[in-house]
């Protein structure tokens, strides 16, 4: 894990330029080989799901991205920009071109096009499945570049190796997880690298590249607001701590202007780039940095006495103007109810916001706060290397290391709000841990090198090392190599620099012992190095285990091990979708809970009512109300939306815990949030949702219960639900408005068809009968059901 560069700071430096360049070249070659190996490692550790299952797209969201990429590859980019999708959110449709972040699909589409034009026949699915591992290799290289700018190549290689394996990043970028984060994390780290590079060099060229990388990030993920708020925060921090320099201006000002323009180019962001509160921080700091730059300029050209006069004049005038501007700004912002912030951003700032106001955001499992064990699961050993890295960043504190400290602090806060944002924490943790480990190895190996007993006679080396010890008697940064003007033996010195624990022999001179060095005792150093290597080994073992066991499940295919060790595969989802695509008409509408929308449109190719985009809360509430209502009312709701088939997921036979009965509480809550006749206490007994004999009659009569448990007693005679671990309450019942058309092999997906309306109505006409009963009911209940 330690690179040869970390051993470079030993005292055996030579003054010869030729040997130094040769040594640098050799070190560069080794660094290059290590980087290639890190890229291969990052790619291969993510292939477990392909090996264990098959090369298939995972989860829910990637299916939508896959469908969009298919459309792009088939129809070209102009049709993609203008695509209006009418097979989802029936009858509203969805404007794909304006509501999707195009970075991922454009990247995969470009790769597919390039590869096919070179006559390598990869299908779109293969390209989509393997996009994430490729970009994780790029992300590791970007982390190397970023950490090299902050601390040096040794820390860079360590950080890259850590990022290649960190489980939190693996979880969102396995082969098959074709989601925005696969590309976005690479764009994030690369943008930060270019910002730091511009800050360190002050070159406008890197500032342009920085703006272009930021544009790629805006195209890829909604998390770009993190960048456009973190960088202004860092600029403000630099100004306040007195680190303003003209390089800071060059790094920040072009980025704001060019970045805002480029962000407005992306249709899904559009004018939000200048109108929403998420971007106001960047404009505010833009104004502040101009004021500061002007102040420094005037200070430079005036004498100090005159400058004091100028300051008093400006302060008195400027204060009045500032107050007026701020008052106007506050009035404008306060006039909007959410103060200009979007719902998701408000959830980040106030973690309790979503549960009070927007139940859909609160219902997504990725938006829950993480538990403490998930920190150890996701970043493992890095969790306690990060504080060491923070301390190492303070010695010495530069602009770039202050940026990294700010990055880790903000990402730790946000990761505490949402589990999903542990992903943003992962690169920061890897960078700081890389710095910490590299510094630790530096100190320890230097201690070992100083104290290895005896050199076989080279007094000049000894004297040179002695002088080095004088110069480097305190802990130094890796790149800090003190100069010496003494000519020395070049070849032994070169070899000494390359190997860390080589037996360097030196003759101890008596005067050496007079100067006390800050080195650790030899035995302690050796043991410490061994322990650090062991720590790294534990980290690697944990990462490989997490990648293989915990994060490789495609969740569209489930497996379990039977008693005799055989593997049993549950492929019910794909079975149901292929039944739908083969046995229904192309224009038939399928109603299900929004989780399965993307998969249904992508795999079954049928129109759905709601899908995972969840942009229309009322429509989702309609479906939720239908699932919570009795059969007749549910039939009427679905019939008014032209639905032909209803799909429910049921895990009671095999013990699959993520089925619709377990999600039922969200259907009730979301439906009840919009339609007040659905009241949650009607479904609760003693504050719990129950489906056994103690369940409320409303629960036993609702559509979800009936569709899930229809004919369930026929499986085992008693109706024992393996997930809820009880027998069900109502066992023998018939369906009056729906008929069952398909149940998969393990009863995991059940498809029902709406029965057509009866031609002949018995007795009085339906309308007068229902209106009279409703009017009598209305006097009693007081809450109106809009479908009667």
């Amino acid at each position, binding site marked *: 894990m330690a690179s040869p560069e970390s051993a470079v700071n030993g005292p055996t430096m030579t003054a010869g330029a030729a040997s130094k360049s040769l040594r640098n070249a050799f070190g560069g070659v080794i660094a290059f080989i290590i980087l290639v190996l890190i890229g291969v490692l990052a790619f291969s550790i993510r292939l477990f799901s392909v090996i264990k299952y098959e090369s298939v797209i995972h989860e829910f969201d990637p299916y939508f991205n896959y469908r969009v990429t298919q459309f792009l590859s088939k129809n070209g980019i102009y049709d993609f920009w203008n695509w209006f999708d009418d097979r989802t959110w029936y009858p509203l449709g969805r404007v794909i071109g304006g509501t999707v972040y195009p970075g991922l699909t454009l990247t995969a589409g470009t790769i597919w096009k390039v590869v096919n034009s070179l006559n390598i026949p990869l299908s779109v699915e293969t390209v989509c499945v393997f996009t994430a591992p490729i970009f994780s290799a790029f992300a590791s290289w970007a982390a190397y570049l970023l950490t090299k700018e902050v601390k040096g190549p040794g820390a860079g290689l360590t950080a890259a190796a850590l990022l290649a394996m960190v489980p939190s990043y693996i979880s969102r970028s396995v082969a098959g997880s074709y989601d925005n984060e696969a590309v976005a994390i690479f764009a994030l780290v690369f943008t930060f690298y270019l910002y730091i590079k511009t800050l360190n060099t002050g070159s406008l060229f890197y500032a342009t590249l920085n703006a272009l990388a930021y544009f790629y990030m805006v195209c890829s993920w909604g998390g770009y607001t993190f960048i456009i708020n973190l960088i202004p925060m860092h600029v403000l921090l630099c100004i306040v701590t007195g680190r303003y320099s003209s390089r800071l201006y060059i790094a920040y000002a072009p980025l704001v202007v*060019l970045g805002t323009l480029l962000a407005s180019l992306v249709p899904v962001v559009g004018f939000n780039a200048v109108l929403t509160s998420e971007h106001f921080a960047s404009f505010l700091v833009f104004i502040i940095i101009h004021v500061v730059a002007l102040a420094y300029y005037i200070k430079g050209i005036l004498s100090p006495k005159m400058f004091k006069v100028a300051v008093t004049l400006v302060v008195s005038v400027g204060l009045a103007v500032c107050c007026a501007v701020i008052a106007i700004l506050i009035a404008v912002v306060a006039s909007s109810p959410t103060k200009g912030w979007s719902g998701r951003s408000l959830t980040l700032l106030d973690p309790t916001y979503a549960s009070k106001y927007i139940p859909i955001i609160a219902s997504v499992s990725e938006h829950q706060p993480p538990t403490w064990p998930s920190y150890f699961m996701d970043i493992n050993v890095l969790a306690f290397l990060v504080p060491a890295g923070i301390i190492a960043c303070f010695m010495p504190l530069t602009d770039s290391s202050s940026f990294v400290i700010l990055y880790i602090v903000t990402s730790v806060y946000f990761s505490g709000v949402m589990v999903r944002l542990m992903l943003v924490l992962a690169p920061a943790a890897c960078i700081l841990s890389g710095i910490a480990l590299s510094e630790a190895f530096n100190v320890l190996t230097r201690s070992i090198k100083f104290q290895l007993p005896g050199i076989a006679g080279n007094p000049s080396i000894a004297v040179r090392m002695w002088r080095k010890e004088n110069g480097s008697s305190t802990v130094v940064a890796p790149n800090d190599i003190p100069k010496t003007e003494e000519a020395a033996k070049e070849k032994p010195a070169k070899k000494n620099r390359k190997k860390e624990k080589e037996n360097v022999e030196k003759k101890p001179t008596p005067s050496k012992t007079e100067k006390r060095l800050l080195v650790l005792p030899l035995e302690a150093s050796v043991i410490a190095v061994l322990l650090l290597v062991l720590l790294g080994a534990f980290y690697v073992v944990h990462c490989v285990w997490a990648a293989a066991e915990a994060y490789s499940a495609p969740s569209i295919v489930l497996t379990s091990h039977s008693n005799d060790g055989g593997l049993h595969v549950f492929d019910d989802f794909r079975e149901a979708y292929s039944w739908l695509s083969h046995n229904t008409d192309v224009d038939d509408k399928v109603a299900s809970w929004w989780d399965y929308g993307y998969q249904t449109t992508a795999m079954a190719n049928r129109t759905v009512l709601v899908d995972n985009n969840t942009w229309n809360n009322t429509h989702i509430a309609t479906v939720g109300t239908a699932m919570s209502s009795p059969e007749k009312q549910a039939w009427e709701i679905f019939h008014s939306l032209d639905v032909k088939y209803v799909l429910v997921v049921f895990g009671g036979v095999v013990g699959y815990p993520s089925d619709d009965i377990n999600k039922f509480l969200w259907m009730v809550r979301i439906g009840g949030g919009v339609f007040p006749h659905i009241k949650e206490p009607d479904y609760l007994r003693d504050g719990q949702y129950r489906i056994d004999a103690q369940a409320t009659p409303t629960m036993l009569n609702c559509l979800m219960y009936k569709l899930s448990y229809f004919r369930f007693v026929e499986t085992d005679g008693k109706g024992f639900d393996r997930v809820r671990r009880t027998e069900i309450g109502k066992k023998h019942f018939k369906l009056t408005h729906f008929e069952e058309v398909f149940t998969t092999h393990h009863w995991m997906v059940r498809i029902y068809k709406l029965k057509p309306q009866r031609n002949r109505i018995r007795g009085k006409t339906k309308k007068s009968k229902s209106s009279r009963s409703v009017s009598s009911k209305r006097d009693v209940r007081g809450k109106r059901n809009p479908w009667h």
Partner: protein
Amino acid sequence: MGRSSTVKETQALFQSLRSAYAATPNNLKIIDVYVGFAVLTAVIQVVYMAVVGSFPFNSFLSGVLSCIGTAVLAVCLRIQVNKDNKEFKDVAPERAFADFILCNLVLHLVIMNFMG
């Protein structure tokens, strides 16, 4: 008494500002004139928008941001070309100018795409 002294101090302040500024080399003054012109154009556009209304908003935004963008880039060029800046003394002014041109090219490409 105090009033006239502050007035006198202010006059002395402006006098010293003017004399210090007159000492800057000519090439920097040319850049400053360019920056002033760009900012003035931006102000004119904002006033026009306030009078006429902001539709189409993307054209207004691209116009204003192009002016502010070239102003910012010219300031960056001035920073890098200024001989008093010790951080940039090993950057050749030709290199600084080439970076300036490149960044302006990218900026105006984006502007032309966004203007609509």
